[in-house]
Structures are given as structure tokens and as C-alpha cells.
């Protein structure tokens, strides 16, 4: 009931634009369906980041329903009717594949807080297209590197049977180097009992799995229920253990190892400021890397808007974004030749806090200043 009231007041607050004079920024994101919480994280993180940057802005937020048709329709209206020159917010690759070319052809700039399809990272890169999050492959390479560093030589790797899942296992294998048994799961599968039995049968030294969102929650719960949690260690990449997943899984997540580009315990001013701002604004909602990526996007856009004096001169704004003159919450941040991040990756452990709930603790840096494999193909 309380939730209902806060939502209602939120809607009321959104009806009145708070910064009528600021630069309009179009946010197309997924707010409906099971993945709706991702869009919520991105929207809220972005607003806090922009606030922190001190820039004058106005957000125009709209739901794409994870549907490329809707996304393009929204983009068309934002670009051509409302005169918005700066778009961001998309969660899923299939939406950005349709929307990004639309924005670029209209001469606008797109800054991605999450989705980074490989199709736009290589030969088809574009001066007006920026990615603040990460390129997909690098996520899982970090997990492979972590498993190797921890001294494991045999692994079972599990991921859904679609392209991102196959890429995840490829990325893991690339850095791991040991013997890997691959198991692919169903695209909409939610019961993994069969896979648990297979893992027990194989008895590897370590398990790597990539299942974002609801599938990840189900997988972790069942890993614990099947008694594997205490016996075979698991290494995860960032999307499979975000704060929301951990909250839904509860104590069953304690004891896992993860790899990430950012964590809430980072000891830098920008990150501390973000954690404080988030806790004040959304005390009941965990802060995830999705929100952090959007916060960084907000900082970057805000700084660039101030430097270029709004979006009147697109070339100046593009140059200001490219210079990436902002203090990232992840410490070091730079754009590679394809305007995707070059950043560090960290090993984290999931430990129990005083109440027994899982909390992510940063252990060590495992990869330094890495970009992605597609950058070489980009000729800008």
C-alpha cells in the first residue's frame, strides 16, 4: 500500500517538470514486464548522476516495453517533435539495435548506460554513439580471469541457449584456459534441477553461470537447495548477481564469487557520494550496477552539457562527451577507439552481514585498463 502511494506521488511529481529551462534528455528504457526493475534502476540512477553534475536538465522518460517497434516510435517523437538531441536509457540490445541507428541518422547523440551490442562496437561504430557501461564480452572475460587466478582448472559453464549466452561462455573460456564443460539452458527455463544433477555428476572445481534477472534468482536458489552451494564454488559475472537478485535470493547467495567493474564499497569520493544520494532517495531499493552505470552516464552527460553549454552545438557536445572529463564512480574510466569503456575489473566475494543477508565485498583488481575485442575493427 505504501508502494502505491509513493508511486502515485512520483507520478504527480513527474507531471510537473522541475527544470523547465534545462536541456531535454530523452530516456527510452524498459519499465514494464519482468525486466521492469532494470529500467527503474537506470532512470533513477541517471537522474541522481545528473543532479550531482549540477547541470540544468529535463528528463523525458518513456517505456519501450522491450519492443523495438515501440522504441523506434518513441525515438521518432523525441527526436523530431520534441527536438531532443541526446538520447540514453536503453536496457536491451534488441531495442538499441533499432533505436540507435534512428538517433544517429537524425544527427543526435546516443549514450548507452547498459546495452552494447557487438554489431555497433566494431566496423559499424559511430562518432555520436557512446557506451558508458561495458562491452558484453569483457564482463565474462573477467570471470574467466578470476577463476584462473583462484587456481581452478576444471569448470562447468552454464548459460541460456541464445547468442549472449554463447558469448558469455566464449568470453569465460578465453581467459580461463582450463577444461570447461558447457551446458546450455532453455531460453525461458526457470527450473534448473536437471542442470544441478549434471553439475554434481561432473564435479568440477568451479561453476560459472550467466543468467540475468529472474533466471539468475531461480538458479541461485536452486543451487543452494540442491546442496551444491557449500561444495562447489561459483564464479559469476556482474549481471548474474546484482543487488536486486541478491535481495531476492537472500542468504543462499553467501559464499559466491563475482567479478564486476564497480562495487558499492569502492573507496572514492564519487562512489561514496552516489551511495549516499541513492540511500537517501531510495532507501528500500538496492543500488545495482545498472543504476551505477546510469549514474556515471548522468555525470558524463552533465559535465559535457556544462562544457558545451547545452545541446545547441552538437559537434561541441560530441567532443565534450568524447573527452570524458568526469570523475567516474569506478575510479579510472576512459573511452577506447570505438568509444566503449577502457576500465578495470575487480574480484568480489559475497559475504554475510550482521543480519545474515548477502553483501558484496571487493577483494582485488584482476584486470587493468581493458577495452574490448571489437575496438580494433572500428575506423572512425
Amino acid at each position: 500500500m505504501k508502494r502505491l502511494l509513493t508511486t502515485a506521488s512520483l507520478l504527480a511529481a513527474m507531471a510537473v517538470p522541475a527544470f523547465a529551462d534545462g536541456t531535454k534528455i530523452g530516456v527510452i528504457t524498459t519499465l514494464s514486464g519482468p525486466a521492469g526493475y532494470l529500467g527503474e534502476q537506470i532512470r533513477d540512477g541517471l537522474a541522481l548522476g545528473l543532479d550531482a553534475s549540477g547541470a540544468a536538465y529535463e528528463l523525458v522518460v518513456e517505456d519501450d516495453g522491450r519492443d523495438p517497434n515501440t522504441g523506434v516510435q518513441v525515438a521518432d517523437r523525441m527526436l523530431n517533435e520534441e527536438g531532443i538531441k541526446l538520447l540514453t536509457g536503453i536496457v536491451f540490445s534488441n531495442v538499441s539495435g533499432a533505436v540507435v541507428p534512428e538517433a544517429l541518422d537524425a544527427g543526435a547523440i546516443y549514450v548507452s548506460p547498459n546495452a552494447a551490442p557487438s554489431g555497433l562496437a566494431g566496423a559499424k561504430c559511430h562518432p555520436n554513439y557512446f557506451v558508458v557501461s561495458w562491452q558484453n564480452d569483457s564482463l565474462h572475460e573477467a570471470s574467466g580471469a578470476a577463476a584462473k587466478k583462484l587456481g581452478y582448472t576444471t569448470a562447468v559453464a552454464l548459460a541460456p541457449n541464445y547468442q549472449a549466452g554463447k558469448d558469455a561462455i566464449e568470453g569465460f573460456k578465453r581467459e580461463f584456459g582450463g577444461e570447461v564443460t558447457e551446458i546450455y539452458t532453455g531460453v525461458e527455463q526457470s527450473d534448473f534441477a536437471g542442470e544441478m544433477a549434471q553439475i554434481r555428476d561432473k564435479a568440477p572445481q568451479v561453476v560459472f553461470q550467466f543468467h540475468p534477472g529472474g533466471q539468475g534468482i531461480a538458479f541461485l536458489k536452486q543451487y543452494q537447495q540442491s546442496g551444491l552451494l557449500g561444495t562447489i564454488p561459483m564464479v559469476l559475472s556482474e549481471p548474474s548477481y546484482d543487488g536486486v537478485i541478491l535481495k531476492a535470493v537472500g542468504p543462499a547467495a553467501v559464499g559466491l564469487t563475482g567479478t564486476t567493474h564497480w562495487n558499492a564499497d569502492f573507496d572514492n569520493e564519487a562512489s561514496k557520494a552516489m551511495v549516499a544520494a541513492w540511500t537517501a532517495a531510495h532507501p528500500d531499493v538496492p543500488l545495482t550496477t545498472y543504476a551505477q552505470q546510469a549514474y556515471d552516464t548522468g555525470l558524463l552527460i552533465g559535465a559535457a552539457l556544462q562544457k558545451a553549454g547545452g545541446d545547441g552545438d552538437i559537434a561541441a557536445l560530441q567532443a565534450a562527451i568524447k573527452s570524458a572529463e568526469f570523475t567516474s564512480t569506478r575510479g579510472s574510466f576512459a573511452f577506447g577507439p570505438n568509444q566503449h569503456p577502457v576500465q578495470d575489473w575487480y574480484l568480489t566475494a559475497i559475504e554475510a552481514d550482521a543480519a545474515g543477508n548477502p553483501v558484496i565485498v571487493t577483494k582485488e583488481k584482476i584486470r587493468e585498463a581493458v577495452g574490448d575485442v571489437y575496438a580494433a575493427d572500428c575506423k572512425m
Partner: protein
Amino acid sequence: MKREHLILLAVFLLLALVPYAAELTGQTSWTRLVGQALIYGMAAASLNFILGYGGMVSFGHAAFFGIGGYVVGILYHHFDAGTSFLGLIPGTDQMLITLPAAVIVAGLAAALVGAMSLRTGGVQFIMITLAFAQMFFFLFISLKTYGGEDGIMVRRTNSLPGLDMKNKATLYWVVLCFAAAYYLFLRRLVQSSFGQIIAGIRQNERRMAAMGISTYRYKLAAFVLSGMGAGLAGALMVNFLRFASPDMMHWSRSGELMIMVILGGVGTLAGPFIGAGVLFTLETTLARYTEHWMLPVGILLLIVVLTTRGGLMALIRRLGGKR
């Protein structure tokens, strides 16, 4: 009959004016909105031919929509990369080639699915068509060369000799012409002896069989024709969106097409177009005002189904008075 012609002409002219009206009022995105609705309308109308006239409730129609779309996407992919499909068929970006290719491939897929599904009827037919569509969905989601679940980008709209397809209004008019031609085609088809037999099979299949008509063949032919129509719509959608992805053939898309038909009016010519237009416009405009647009859309759909019999077309007829 005369009056019907006049209404059709007036609607066509009104639709042709949409890009001007959009420009004039500053609401330029309406051109694309109406364009997308027209394409969905074509897909829904193709479904309506077997569902409304033929009584074959297909729950897998989005498969043909998606296949048509992927033909355009795959041909463009090879054209762009300078390679050829399976090392045999070179890619192309000529609309005069891609659209017929999409229609033929979708028709072949429909022939395959129809030949097996039409051995059953009723709920079993619904489920079997769904099953085949799911198989196509899982197939395309695992095609790495063509983007997997990320989909495949078509950086430039297919070209048509003598026209500037980059111009949004031109592209819209091309779509409108296809939609109008398809509407007229369906109108002829329904009134033809073939259409009459299909309607007869819906009303009483046994009687038609007793008259010596091979109902299976007729139903299969109707199914294939309908699949081809969906393939055409899918091919146009990929040109319009410049993007194809497996969610074009997700089962919820099949459901959406069915909802468009039922909302507009089952077994009417204009119904699917009206249903598609209303549903798509409703979704996108409500999404502007609230994140929770699904709730009002759901409530409105419920009101329509509870208060009208025969969808929006029935409502329009009732308001327009009985002729």
C-alpha cells in the same frame, strides 16, 4: 456499393495526407505511427482471412511475419557484407527483389506448417500452429550469423527505382500503397468463388466435403495465401524499422495480431486495420502519459469486449445506423 467506394477513396486520400498533416501540426512522428499501424493492419488482415473467413484460428501467425522480415534482413546482410546466402544466393537491397522473395519464403513456410496443422482442428489447431511458431522462434534466436536474439540491422531501407526511400514521407506512401493494394486484393479474394468456398468450409465443412470439394486443399491454399500476406507485412516492417529481430515471431506477437483482429472485428475487411491502428496508437500514446499504460489498455480492451459484440466494427456499424 457506390457508397462503399466513396468511403474507401476518402479514407485512402485522408491517409495519403497524413505526412502533410503531421508536418503542419508539428506532430511529425505520426507519419511513422500510422505507417507502423498500417503494416500491423496488413499482418492482422492476413490472419483474419483464415481466422475470420476460414475459421482457422492460427496462434502462430507471427512466424510468417518474422520470416518475411528476416528474408529482407538476411538479404541486406549479405549485400552489405558482399557475401552470399549459403554461398549460393547473393544479397540485395532492391525492394523489387526482396519483397517477392519474402512473400515466397513465407508462403513456403506456411505450406509446411499448414500441411501438418490442418490435419487437426479447433483448440488442437491453435496449439499446433503455436508449436511450429515456437520452433521458428528458437531457430532464429540461435542464428549467430544473423545476430541471434540481438536481431539484425538493416542500415538502409531497400531501394525502389526512381524513389528516394530515405525520405520518410515517400516510404510511408509506399507502405500505404501496399496496404491499399492488399486491402483490395483481400476484398476481391473474399468475394471470389475461392473465398466463398473458404467461408462455406467454416460454416459447415462436412457439407462442403459432401459437395465433392477437397476441403483440406482449399484450407491449405488459404493458409498459404495468408502466410504470404504476413510475410509481405513483415518485409515492409523491416524496411520501415530497418531492423529485424526474433521478437517479431515471439508467441506474444502472434497473440497481439489475434487481439488486433478481435478488437477490430472478426471476419470484416476493415476491422483488422482498425484494430491494429487503435491498439498501436493506444499503447504508444498512453505510454507517453504513464509508465503504467498497460493498466488502462487492459481496462479499455475489457470494456470493448464486454460492451460490443463483434469488436469495433460492430460499434461503428451501430453508431452509423443500420443500412
